[in-house]
């Protein structure tokens, strides 16, 4: 399973059920594309896998 390719369409369908969203089929391609984009953002964030700080709480009060 670890080598399985991400399937954002299947994920979107399952997530819509889980979240109680009534998704029009016409919106589905756009949702899938945005999920791919969000995955790309996440991959940018984790980058080369270097350790991230443990506690994110400090971000809220500059």
């Amino acid at each position: 399973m670890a080598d399985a390719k991400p399937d954002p369409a299947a994920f979107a369908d399952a997530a819509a059920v889980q979240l109680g969203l009534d998704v029009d089929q016409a919106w589905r391609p756009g949702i899938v594309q945005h999920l791919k984009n969000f995955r790309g953002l996440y991959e940018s964030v984790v980058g080369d896998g270097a350790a991230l700080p443990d506690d994110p709480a400090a971000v809220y009060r500059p």
Partner: protein
Amino acid sequence: MTSDGDALALAAAVRSGATTAAGTLDSALARIAAIEPQVQAFNAVTEAPARVAARHLDAAVAAGRDPGPLAGVPFAAKALFDVAGLPTHGGSVVRAGAPPAERDAAAVARLTAAGAVLAGITNMDEFAFGFTTENSHYGATRNPHDAERVAGGSSGGSAAAVAAGMVPVALGSDTNGSVRVPAALCGVFGLKPTYGRVSRAGAAPLAWSFDHVGWFARSVRDLAILLDLTQGHDPRDPASAERVSPPAAPAVTRGTQGLRIAVAGGHFAAGAEPAALAAVAKAAAALGATRQVELPEVPRAIAASLLISAAEGASLHLDELRTRAGEFDPQTRDRWLAATMIPAAWIHAAQRFRRGWREAATAALADVDVLITPTTPFAAPRIGQMTIRIGAAEMPVRGALGRFTAPFSFIGVPALSAPVWLDGPLPYGVQLVGKPFDDEAILRAAAALEAAGVARAPVAAP
């Protein structure tokens, strides 16, 4: 130097009796009536209550009472601020039938308590989720300097109303750049104060940990007086800082002596039109800034910023997306829906990076008081334009507009956009970024640019 007709000049005339609040309001309403059809900055003009407020102010002046530092100054507020008696629709038909707000948002209340007169509610991207104010429900706000171009967003109506001389100041909100981007595209000054310095109570949120109240003006001293009038702790806003900040207005006249000013390199010196970078160079030369500083890993910061803000907004609107998704703006509905599905692990990774990046950026700017960057990579694009070519790269317009502003909302530092003009007909924004709770430093630098004639916000004549 201040622009003609700025808010403080208008207030001085009302306070001295040289003119009346009613007369000042008449002029603003006449200007709105004449120009609004071309600009489409307003969702509603609040003429009747404005006339009542103006009469009370004139009565106060006649009775020898202090009418307030902004006596008779007409202002506008983005459609996400609560205004007593009106539904807060946030640019969406989903909220158009909401019950009327029972009280004004904190920022609106503080300005009206200072004698300012609310003239109207301004157009915005739906729920502040955009950078162009091309709203499918309420129409596109047009740039007063070129009606074929966008005003920027999401606070585009407020920026356009100030640029067109309909009001001298207007409230907006800034999550990833929604004050600074339209300020740059419309050629006005726009301030996003330090996160927590100005209460957001009564302002509909987009992304809680990024949202700031901000505003537009045609002079730096107006930016500063609005900060002084709106800042301070407010228990109604959980992010409101408890620290007491000194008045900012006196700082505007102090010059830049002692300020350590640098130009941002790396990410901020690439991916922009040459003219946007030329505007930065012009401002840097005027401020005597020769040093260049590079912030680390800015693209990762932007990625984390976009992930978190999308997820926070989607969480906020989840119930409406369950029941009324079909009424959302078609331009952003699919993204909202997808954002509800972002895995929690991705968000927490982004939040963990956020903390680390804040520490890294703070360290990189430890000996810098003001950092200069472009506000946007290009001047106002055309209405409906989806992509733009910068060098060899084709960029999506909407995403690219925030590439220089989002990193600073991410960590809550103060930032403003100053309007700089080159040889062409459109303005460019130069972004000045400061340290947390030292908003005064960027106001001082902006005032120096204004005094040198490098930054100016002339009234557009659409």
